[in-house]
């Protein structure tokens, strides 16, 4: 039995490596993905392009502009001369944020008369808008506090809020995204690989040839999934190395645990891939079905947005996405350095889900062969 499986595995690898293009895509695609995601998928907001419309031109308004720029969050790109120009700049998307300081701003501040600063934000990207607005308000609030520091409220008590950030003290969103991307890439590659490689035999007509060999259906399934699992492991290793050494994402937990959990994760991914191969006749269908599965599986896993923010119905659906569990595992191992004592429910869930899917798909697969 092992001999036959081994032969099939070798055949699969010959098939992968026969064409340079296939090799390139099996290993280069994950690398391109991690580089793109690593650089692009950040929610950090900085260097917001800003227009400053300063009608006052006093030392106070210049001080404010200086604070705005030195915060690192804003870059003053334009100095419009009229409100109409602000409108045009925002319409064209040249700036995301416009700040207007009215005449007498400096004079009022010196006299202690309350005054105002107008902030206009382009809301088309609501997340950036919200964060940018928060930053502006914080800078204005701080400036306002500093200006009024000497007067009234010095003798009143204060409530100090000490916030401490755990696991990712610099709040780098890359540290959060990269481990997630690792999970995502492996899923996409392995799904496409299993589903298409099985269907290909059927489409091209070589399935009959395989069936007349003494190879049993179970052996065929194992022989088809092992190469995909190996490619999955190699991809995860490549991507992890790049994540750690190129993007400086820390791994606080045990590597061996990551390797073991990856196995549990691959179980369900390969099971789904096999299932897709049983419902598709052509590679076209296999690819479409894979896309149809992985898009919701990614979106409803907590990859991009936290599960708690989803409506309850969708929260239940997330339990069917293997990515959901694996994301908690990789983020736990990378960032929190937690061990099996914390992660066991996720591992158990992956094993149950994986075994169930793999068994169901294998049964379906056998039936189709018979």
């Amino acid at each position, binding site marked *: 039995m092992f001999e036959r499986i081994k032969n099939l595995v070798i055949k699969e690898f010959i098939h992968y490596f026969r064409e340079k293009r296939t090799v390139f895509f099996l290993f280069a695609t994950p690398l391109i993905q991690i580089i*793109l995601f690593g*650089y692009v998928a950040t929610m950090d907001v900085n260097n917001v392009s800003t227009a400053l419309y300063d009608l006052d031109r006093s030392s106070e308004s210049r001080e404010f502009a200086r604070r705005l720029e030195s915060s690192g969050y804003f870059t003053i790109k334009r100095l419009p001369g009229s409100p109409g120009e602000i409108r045009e700049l925002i319409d064209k998307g040249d700036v995301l944020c416009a700040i207007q300081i009215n005449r007498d701003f400096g004079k009022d501040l010196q006299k202690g008369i309350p005054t105002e600063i107008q902030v206009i934000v382009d*809301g088309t990207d609501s997340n950036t808008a919200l964060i940018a607005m928060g930053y502006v308000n914080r800078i204005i609030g701080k400036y306002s*506090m500093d200006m009024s520091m000497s007067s009234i409220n010095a003798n009143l008590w204060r409530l100090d*809020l000490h916030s401490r950030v*755990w696991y990712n003290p610099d*709040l780098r969103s890359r540290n959060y995204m990269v481990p997630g991307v690792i999970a995502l890439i492996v899923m996409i590659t392995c799904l496409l690989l299993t589903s298409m490689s099985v269907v290909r035999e059927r489409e091209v007509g070589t399935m009959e040839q395989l069936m007349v060999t003494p190879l049993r259906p179970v052996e065929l399934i194992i022989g088809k999934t092992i190469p995909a699992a190996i490619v999955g492991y190699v991809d995860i290793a490549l991507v992890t190395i790049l994540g750690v050494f190129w993007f400086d994402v820390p791994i606080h937990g045990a590597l061996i645990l990551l390797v073991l959990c990856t196995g549990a994760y691959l179980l369900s991914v390969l099971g789904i891939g096999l299932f897709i191969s049983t419902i598709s006749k052509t*590679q076209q269908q296999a690819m479409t079905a894979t896309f149809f599965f992985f898009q919701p599986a990614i979106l409803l896993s907590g990859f991009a947005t936290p599960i708690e923010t989803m409506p309850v119905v969708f929260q239940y659906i997330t339990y069917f996405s293997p990515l959901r569990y694996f994301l908690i595992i990789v983020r736990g191992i990378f960032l929190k350095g937690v061990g099996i004592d914390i992660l066991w429910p996720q591992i158990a869930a992956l094993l149950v889900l994986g075994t169930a899917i793999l068994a169901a798909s294998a049964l379906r697969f056998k039936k189709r062969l018979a």
Partner: protein
Amino acid sequence: MKLLRIKAIAKKELIQIRRDPLSLAMAFLMPVLLLFIYGYAITFDIDKISTVVFDRDNSSLSREFVSQFHESRYFRVHSYVDSYRELDPYLDGGKAKVAIVIPEDFSKNILRGLNAQVEVLIDGSDSNTATIAQGYALVIAENFSQRTKGVRITPLIDSKNRVWYNNELKSRNFIIPGLISIIMAVIIALLISLTIAREWDRGTMEQLISTPVKTSELILGKLIPYFLIGFIDTIVTVLMSTVVFHVPLRGSVTLLLFLSSIFLFGGLCFGILISIAGRTQLVASQAALITSFLPAFLLSGFIFSISNMPKPLQIITYFIPARYFVTILKGIFLKGSNLKILFMEASLLTLFAVLVFIAANRKFKKRID
């Protein structure tokens, strides 16, 4: 170029598509599925952050303080613990993202008029949620202290915030218009990238070569059915976004559909190019994934803003047609932009479509010879 031959190829392709109802069904269901998920489940608005409280003071003031957190819609206080040791598993296991620790002397200090301290521990692994949680916590604490003091200090500088185009700051409004380009990229990646590779895989390409059909006719003929599918998908998406999800459509629908057609045409030509170059279906599918779907998702400004990317990647985005298309979509939907404002984007899209069409023709001719 003969219309008759284009028609014949289109008809053949249409028959092939019809024979594969599974793929066809998914091509039409995909936009609906994605719209529902993005429309209902994906929101970047952070609220109900799960919170655990360690109240060492346990006075009416401290309870009042905690209730301020719970009553704001941003935090959901669901557990109380009695020691620091008990806190760890909550944050480690992800059962809470924020922990509030109130020291023993909290109310005593406030009543005496001394400074009081509160500690907030935040799970920083999700940096976005953490940043926002930090900001909210500060505001709540500030409001609490002003209320207890019974004074309201008017700040010297009042910041007047105005948000244009999307004044409720709904993330749905900015995601859904851009989603149209994602849907098209998916359709392109899924359906057309395999069409030529399939003919090679199955050995039917030789038959096609032996017919008098010319390259451009073959490409156009293969394009037409997919163009129709993509166009129907666009209409469905636009209709659903406005009717079901109430995304404002402030600009002209005609302009939207016109520019979508140009993008669709260019994208489909590009898909055919991939298919020609990829040769096998597995390679073509992977190539479609990284050259069509990923750039549309990551480098177009759909979710991740381009100004945040490192410079080299920003330069690359100029070569991604989806970038211009996303600008166009958001512009027409949210800003009500007209062709005059979008002229540059529209002409670059057209240029891209023409170039790719020529490239596909060239590449294909060599293969037939």
